[in-house]
């Protein structure tokens, strides 16, 4: 079987249409969230699917916690010229799922959110989400830079680092985030090496195997 036949076997060459066009259409046809929520993909084991459904049926974070997560996620990854915000990419729902999936995140997240509210209350007399934006950011500034944070803020630093990691994971693995980061693979093609103009830009010789 040659490559063209490989792709035919995959169903990626429909009559008269290019491979990439077909692959792209398939992507758009699928509602991403729905696929992750309910559909059992072939090759997913029964126990895995049952576990997913069970986790999706549970609720861990309270409404207030979810609201705080949403504000924090958008502070970490806001909308800009290239793409939308973390919440627009569904990050809060992902975080709700992942702490149930990896329960070691539960206490650090719940306790961290509480820590943040206690700090906000002390400083500004309000829960974090009710503070003004500049108040929120002033507090975040003290926990967002591990190397310059004060010793008494280290618990906040640990929480924010986790929140930041979960946010970047959730955002850049969403359809919006994958497009934003510029990942253009996961489709059939032919690899003939690094494009010549990139090789030249980096000082490698396109004629040589090892540049």
């Amino acid at each position: 079987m040659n490559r063209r036949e490989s792709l035919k076997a995959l169903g990626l060459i429909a009559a008269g249409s290019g491979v990439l066009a077909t692959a792209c259409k398939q992507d758009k046809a699928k509602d991403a969230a729905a696929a992750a929520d309910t559909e059992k993909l072939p090759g997913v084991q029964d126990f895995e699917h049952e576990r997913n459904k069970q986790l999706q049926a549970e609720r861990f974070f309270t409404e207030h916690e979810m609201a705080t997560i949403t504000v924090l996620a958008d502070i970490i990854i806001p909308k800009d010229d290239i793409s939308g915000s973390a919440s627009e990419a569904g990050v809060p729902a992902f975080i709700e799922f992942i702490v149930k999936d990896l329960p070691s995140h539960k206490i650090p997240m719940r306790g961290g959110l509480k820590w943040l509210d206690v700090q906000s209350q002390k400083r500004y007399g309000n829960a974090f989400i009710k503070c003004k934006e500049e108040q929120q950011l002033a507090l975040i500034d003290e926990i967002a830079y591990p190397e310059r944070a004060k010793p008494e803020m280290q618990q906040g630093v640990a929480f924010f680092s986790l929140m930041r990691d979960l946010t970047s994971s959730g955002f850049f693995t969403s359809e919006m985030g994958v497009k934003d980061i510029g990942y253009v693979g996961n489709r059939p093609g032919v690899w003939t090496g690094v494009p010549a103009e990139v090789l030249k830009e980096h000082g490698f010789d396109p004629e040589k195997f090892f540049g």
Partner: protein
Amino acid sequence: MADYQIKENPEVFDAIVVGSGAGGGMAGYILAHAGLKVLMLEAGPFFDPAKDALQLRWPWESPRRGASTTRPFGDFDAAFGGWQLDGEPYTTVNGTEFEWFRARMLGGRTNHWGRISLRMGPDDFKPTDGVTDEWPITYDEVKPFYDRVDRMIGIYGTVEGIRNEPDGIFMKPPKPRLNELYIAKGAKKAGVPVIPGRGSVLTEASSEIKGRGTCFYCGQCGRSCKVYADFSSSSCLVMPAMKTGNLKVIDNAMVREVLTNEEGLATGVSYVDTQSLQEYTVRGKTVVLGASACESARLMLNSKSSAHPGGLGNSSGLVGRYLHDSTGASLSGFLPQLLDRKRYNEDGVGSVHIYSPWWEDNRKLAFPRGYHIEYGGGLHMPSYGFLNWVPGVNGKVAGKNGEKKAAGGYGAELKQDYRRFYGANVGMAGRGTALARKDNYCEIDPTRVDKFGIPVLRFHYKWANEEIAQAKHMQETFQSIMHEMGAIITSDIPGPETLYGLEAPGKIIHEGGTTRMGNDPKTSVLNKWGQAHDCKNLYVVDAGPFVQQGDKNLTWTILALSMRTAEYILEQKKKLNG
């Protein structure tokens, strides 16, 4: 259990093969193609990569975005199983450690492996340093089988003429990715050779290979391939063997014991259906174990009889002994030259594009044998946690304004940093020879059984100075390559307190040696054909027969030796009949 009943299969098979991975798959393939009636028993479910691979799925199609919660290599990886299986425990002797990876599925671990396909060399079979025992066979005796495996299954690589890294019959290798070009350049400066990778992925069509597609470069071999462009035992061996009409597969069949008669010959096996828990026995003229090195040893040790009081084929007391994995250690960093790099599709193949074969002269070193280096990094598909390293290092290089800032952060600037650092990461991992020692072993735990009532394995494995010194050498080499390529190291550099980052035994998933071959029945379990000294119709075809593996990932050797053993079985049958 008033209605406890064992169902007996009336059919007598020419051969029963236990396990469907590289070893079992190859044996089944050869025997079925020669016309033998073969029964293959697999402990896990049937798995066809064409239907069951999670290839070409996007991260958002996993609710955990590919995190490794239920599968150690992530949600899309093609291994059903892991280092822990529900209801199938194993134990370790205090003060020792071993991590036992099991994939329960048709094709076993070959569905997800790295497809890195290296031959062991002349010195691996017949060591010149006297540190470990010789194999009873030479490279030259195995070479014709390696050649046939190359042609039958397909492998890419380049002819290099390195003495102990024998060349094969190669298809064209994939070209290096950008980070790999930097690695090759840096390694050369550090005195470490880098050559094109060797992987069992079809980069070309071959007239000798039917029913399989050619690679379309999605880089996802670990998910198994829907067009069978890489080697999985399921797609390349077992399913073609089934098509002969001579091989029958029973899946979800966990073998309990090999049954023997009064003379001590194998007569068949007993197994439990893992779904219904019904017990079965089935008879076979020959029994071939390819259940994985430790699982086959467990099965032999659990098959006690008056003829084999210490376990089947265990008069030497060596079944389970000489257990050895590969060593493994790694280091990560990033290349400032690759910040803000241009985007393009560099998925490539899912096996290695480049690697460093062992290059040093051991006479100048404090440890025997060596390791090869595998390299990673680049513009890969996003998945859970893939950018976690960025906030830790975005303070290490100057921004576009020429100034360094504090690491971490948030907001538009951090979002830009994620884009800036994506694809700039590099990683290197050593895979080396761990010595096969009699004192590293698995045995039957006298007090524990699994959920099927089968006595479980207890492991006793400790690293020694040779492995630790090798890991230290790895870390020094990695740092030197990182330095020469101008990379910034992002991992903590492991020191003596962590044995230089040496992974726990079993973590590299190259375990072998538990039923080693040899000419002397007192010092080996199998003869040089993989046939038990004590039971002439019992054979082992997984990595159990390995006297000592080299730093060459062992699948290609399992395939070659299983082919050789299967043909020996055919010869023996011919002799009996003729």
